[in-house]
């Protein structure tokens, strides 16, 4: 097992490196450069001054050279400093990462908290009108734009009910963004759960459990839930990355201070070190999550062993 985890980590690191190199090359071919953005709003330098700024930031070197320099720095643990205001990339990202992770985790909890029971219930009542209503609900869930749901919730809770502040930045205001994100993904999870459960319901071992005299509720909870979770976990793994991506929108709506906002801003103004740092952190989270998910598999399904 330890062996397996170590090997997974090696592959993970390889993917991270590939991502960094990929993103470094990509951002340099993308039109626009940070110097233009630095001077975009108020200053009006001469062409020579612009050249000087490029040189000072090392942007005059060939792309591959910049990439190699960056990789060297990353290996020595230095993620560099933002081109805009020169704050430390690592400090900022690691400071904000917990917020995004908290949001993603809370959203995931809500998504599974809503999606799992609903999918479970729809499966149990398969083919009835309840099932149909839940399916339409799922479609609504994925079709509602996150910013829209987010704003509606925000306006309702902060203006109409005056229960929550618009932007407190603390954990009180985790609820709404998490709900907003969670709703979309709960719909997907509900559908996956439903189909997984329906398959499990037809399994022989469910009949065995019933034949044993266990009450129906216990049969479902103990015997049907865990096997269907395996399929659900797969979809959770896939969804998590999109959820992290979706966090960008929701962080903006709720002024939630996560890395998603940094990402959007940095990309908009070509803050290369910041983008690279973001990708590094984002990719690390994604890769770690997939490792975690694989371990969750082994925990859920004893037939799966890693050695």
């Amino acid at each position, binding site marked *: 097992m330890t062996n397996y985890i170590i090997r997974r980590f090696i592959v993970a690191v390889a993917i991270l490196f590939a991502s960094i190199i990929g993103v470094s090359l990509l951002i340099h071919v993308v039109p626009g450069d940070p110097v233009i953005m630095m001077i975009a709003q108020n200053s009006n330098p001469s062409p020579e001054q612009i050249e000087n700024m490029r040189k000072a930031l090392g942007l005059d070197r060939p792309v591959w050279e910049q990439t190699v320099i960056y990789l060297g720095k990353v290996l020595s643990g230095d993620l560099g400093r933002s081109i805009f205001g020169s704050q430390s990339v690592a400090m900022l990202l690691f400071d904000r990462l917990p917020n995004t992770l908290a949001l993603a985790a809370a959203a995931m909890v809500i998504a599974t908290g809503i999606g799992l029971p609903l999918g479970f219930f729809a499966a149990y009542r398969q083919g009835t009108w309840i099932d149909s209503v839940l399916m339409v609900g799922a479609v609504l869930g994925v079709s509602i734009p996150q910013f829209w749901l987010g704003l509606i919730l925000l306006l309702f809770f902060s203006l109409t009910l005056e229960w929550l502040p618009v932007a407190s930045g603390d954990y009180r205001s985790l609820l709404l963004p998490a709900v907003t994100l969670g709703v979309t993904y709960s719909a997907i999870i509900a559908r996956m759960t439903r189909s997984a459960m329906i398959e499990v319901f037809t399994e*022989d*071992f469910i*009949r*065995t459990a019933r*034949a*044993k005299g266990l009450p129906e509720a216990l049969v479902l909870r*103990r015997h049907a839930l865990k096997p269907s979770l395996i399929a659900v976990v797969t979809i959770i793994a896939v969804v998590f990355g999109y959820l992290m991506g979706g966090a960008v929108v929701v962080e903006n709506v709720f002024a939630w201070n996560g890395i998603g906002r940094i990402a959007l801003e940095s990309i908009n103004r070509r803050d290369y070190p910041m983008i690279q740092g973001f990708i590094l952190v984002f990719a690390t989270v994604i890769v770690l999550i997939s490792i975690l998910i694989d371990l969750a598999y082994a925990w*859920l399904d*004893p037939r799966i062993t890693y050695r």
Partner: protein
Amino acid sequence: MAADTVRPILSIRDLRVTFQGGLGLAAAVDGVSCELQRGETLAVVGESGCGKSVTALSILRLIPSPPGRIAGGAIEFDGRDLLALAPEELYAVRGNAISMIFQEPMTSLNPVLSIGTQLTEGLIFHKRLGIREARERTVEMLRLVQIPDPEARLAQYAHQLSGGMRQRVMIAMALACEPRVLIADEPTTALDVTIQRQILDLMVELKERLGTAIILITHDLGVVAEMADRVAVMYAGKIIEQAPVDGLFDHPRHPYTRGLMAALPRLDRLSASGEEGRLNEMPGLVPSIYAMPPGCAFAPRCPFATSQCHAEEPAFEELSPGHYAACWEAGRLP
């Protein structure tokens, strides 16, 4: 043994089970009646799809619903009608007074729960044992079904056991609460002869020790011959012949039963003669339950069928003491 003097432990009367399929409503079991005495082994044989499993599942009300429905009849266990029980009462019967072993040992155990969990939960639920006591009792059961190193097995999962061991675990699970009736639905079909032999031996031994009555569903006439006291032959949702085992093998009265016996490749005869030949096959197939013929369901395949057979359903009659059959021509068969 005088069957009518002792009150049967289980009696099924006129059971009718229907399925709502894409092609309409169909009766998978259509008027089955039979009785099971204490300590007796009743074998149920019949072609695939004739309703053996559905009958067995009906006893514990395990018919998947929808699409299935128990549409009529009564199942009395120890004087109580199982079909009228409230859910809680039913749970108390299932796995406790009546338990069941299924055909597929591979899929009938939950792959993600440990053997121990699955074995103890019945005991904890029915006998209100503590976890420790339940484990002790379970270990004892596993020892009884000859599983080596039972303590260690409790922590294992189904996939870590071989097919034979899984089936033994199923048996241990079924017997844990010392049921008075054991329904075994093709318990050895999926197993090899050598393993099958072990399982059958085990069932005989357990029956002797615990006095359990067994309903043994199988289509292997060899198994029937070795295990059963009495045999019921089913065809297309009905029991068409029922007799003590010797009587049935000596003198089958229904043409279908005869066909079945003849179709069997028999090692005992082969090894004696050493010559090969065609097996006696019955032409045709079991009718689809969605398109039952009028009259005797076997008539279209029956070499002895008369016009009466095609028009009228034969009655289930006692032809000799304890030997019943449903055939217009039973008396005239060679």
